[in-house]
């Protein structure tokens, strides 16, 4: 009898294994954040092809099911519940938008799959009376966060500013949950680093219904007499903001922007010259993985990645594949252990999950960030110096 039961268990296990592993992905493929979602999708597709070419996961081809959240909270919850109850996935990847993530907290806690989450960077750390993603989910053993938290983004930005030697910084920020808390934190850190912040001014981003006329805000920055301009906004603000800076002949020593992504067509524009920005991945990073990723990405998609979310998605899917293969099973405890103990590949180099201020499992931190500068149509890395491809040039 025992032999029959053992045989049955082995047979059932073999059947389960033969079905292969499926990872559910939540990403904003349409809507206001579609650029980010499509970049994530491109990164997942490349990683998936490579993983399966390398033998798949547990000897079977890995599968992913991508659900569109539209960066809408209610849609995101419905999409997650579909993945859990209709598709029966045990692993969740993707992730973007703090609003969507906050709406998913209750559902994540209910189902408790392993969630490896790229976006949702509003940590809540340093914001009184508001619980962000790190505070709500960071202590859950099944939650893994890939993208740096908002305070880690700000740490990198202010460290760069401090490295330039400027004495004063005018701070412009878009007025939503992205730019508002970021600007408060940045102003504090800049002052802690010995710089004065004579102006902190909010503007309405074109992404959230603004007209794209930033002239009044820029004029205030010019009047502040600050050595450098630091702005926090969205991708769609890049072109109007920098064009109007040139139009108004505002010439601070450095113009530094921190949008989630930079429009690729901006590189060759004359307004781009000397503008600096924060970015997670650039093809000209000096590490070999960056070049390998670029070549493979171009071969698959016919163009270079223009949003670092592609690199993060690629890194995330590979980390799942490597962890499940290392665990040799899809058992949750074993995969969690493999994720928290493993070192994974990425276009930015090797990375692993480690504790942050609250979270048990934080992937990339402030060290992920690079500052590039547009120099003659090329994004040259100017900070940190260890990765620099060219020296930082003043705009004056």
């Amino acid at each position, binding site marked *: 009898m025992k032999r029959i039961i053992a045989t049955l268990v082995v047979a059932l296990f073999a059947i389960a294994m033969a079905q292969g592993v499926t990872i559910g992905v939540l990403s904003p493929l349409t809507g206001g954040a579609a650029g980010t979602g499509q970049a994530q999708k491109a990164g997942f597709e490349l990683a998936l092809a490579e993983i399966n070419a390398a033998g798949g996961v547990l000897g079977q081809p890995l599968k992913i099911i991508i659900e*569109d959240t539209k960066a809408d909270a209610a*849609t995101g919850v419905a999409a997650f519940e*579909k993945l*859990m*109850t209709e598709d029966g996935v045990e692993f969740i990847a993707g992730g973007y938008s703090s609003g969507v993530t906050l709406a998913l907290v*209750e559902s994540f806690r209910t189902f408790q799959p392993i969630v490896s989450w790229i976006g949702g960077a509003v940590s809540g750390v340093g914001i*009184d009376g*508001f619980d962000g993603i790190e505070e709500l989910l960071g202590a859950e053993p099944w939650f893994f966060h890939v993208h740096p938290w908002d305070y880690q983004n700000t740490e990198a930005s202010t460290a760069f500013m401090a490295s330039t030697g400027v004495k004063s910084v005018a701070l412009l920020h878009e007025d939503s*949950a992205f730019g*508002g808390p970021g600007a408060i934190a940045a102003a504090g850190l800049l002052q802690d680093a010995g710089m004065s912040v004579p102006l902190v001014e909010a503007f309405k981003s074109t992404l959230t219904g603004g007209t794209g006329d930033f002239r009044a805000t820029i004029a205030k920055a010019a009047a502040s007499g600050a050595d450098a301009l630091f702005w926090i906004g969205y991708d769609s603000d890049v072109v109007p903001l920098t064009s109007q800076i040139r139009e108004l002949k505002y010439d601070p020593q450095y113009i530094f922007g921190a949008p989630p992504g930079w429009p690729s067509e901006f590189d060759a524009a004359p307004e781009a010259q000397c503008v600096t920005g924060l970015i997670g991945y650039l093809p000209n990073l000096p590490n070999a993985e960056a070049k390998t990723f670029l070549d493979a990405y171009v071969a698959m998609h016919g163009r270079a990645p223009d949003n670092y979310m592609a690199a993060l998605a690629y890194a995330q899917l590979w980390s799942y594949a490597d962890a499940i293969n290392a665990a040799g099973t899809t058992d949750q405890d074993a995969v969690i252990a493999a994720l928290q103990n493993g070192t994974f590949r990425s276009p930015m180099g090797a990375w692993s999950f480690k504790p942050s201020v609250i979270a048990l499992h934080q992937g990339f931190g402030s060290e992920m960030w690079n500052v590039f500068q547009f120099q003659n149509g090329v994004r040259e890395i100017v900070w940190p110096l260890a990765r620099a491809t060219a020296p930082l040039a003043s705009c004056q």
Partner: protein
Amino acid sequence: MRGLTRDLVATAAFAVLLVFLPSVLREVFGRASVSYLSLATNALVLAVLALSWDMLARTGQLSLAHAAFTGAGAYTVAVLFKLTGAPLWLGIPLGGLVAAVLALGLGSVTLRLFGIYFAIATLAFTEVLKAAVQRLPTAVAGGAAGINVPALFRPTFVAGSMERWEVAFLRNQGYFWVYAGLLVVAVVISVLIQRSRLRAAFTAVRTNEQVAGVMGVNPARMKLLAFVLSSFVAGLLGAVEAHRLGSVSPDGAFSVHTTVLALVTPIFGGLYTTLGPILGATVLAGIEETLKRTFSEGYLIGYGIVLVASILFMPRGLVGLASKLVKRGGASTSGRVGGASGGAADAAAEERA
């Protein structure tokens, strides 16, 4: 009176159907019912949003302030809970009342405007309210990051006696019933309007304000009444949404996307009716989900084509189309041809729907 009784009985039957729908879904689909219930809840939210917007549209006013009122409801519960820790359910009616009071104030100064001028004023109001909320002290309104809002339903997982999906089902069922209750409230208000002299008054104001005035209708009062009722329901909706989505932020709560949905859905379903916005919400949500599951890439193109085609070929929406089909069926069976007054009669019948 007989029409009112019939409509209220139909509403009661609809309410009973909504009460039992979660159990039916669970019986038929098992664990997948969690997902279907979530989709049905989203359709209910859209129906309440659309029906509340249509109430004002019946007076001929095109409001672009619907997001302001859902946002006001959402922020009422969020601020109330943050500052006082008041019982969860208290904030919901208060959210409706705050939205209604705001509508009273806004309507008093803007409802003399017509058409596009009123629309622009209401759009500006949404932005002003959003900016005001953003500039309130962070200790009160949470600033740009927003405020956490506790869930209304938090069923406990009991290991060994239930599965995790059953917890999700219980939570979704709770929200489904709350939104169903809101929809029933909205339907009752709408039916009372449609089956009272208010319908004629609203229609008269919409058709020609001067003539309405001559007939003894006070256009300003009628529009204000419609605006307040419409905003009250929107405020209730926003309040419940804040609980379901776990947080409020200025961007999410006052999103122009909410206003666009509130406007498009009744146009698709059939303006100036009770049935139209509900039908529109159900069909639009169904079409979008079906397209999404069938064509994962570019499904919104198909969705857009459906909307454009409906505007071009169904000027009176789904209700108008259904009414036309019924009339054709009736004419072919009786062999009669509609008279000159047929179009007007059809429109009146549609409006009562």
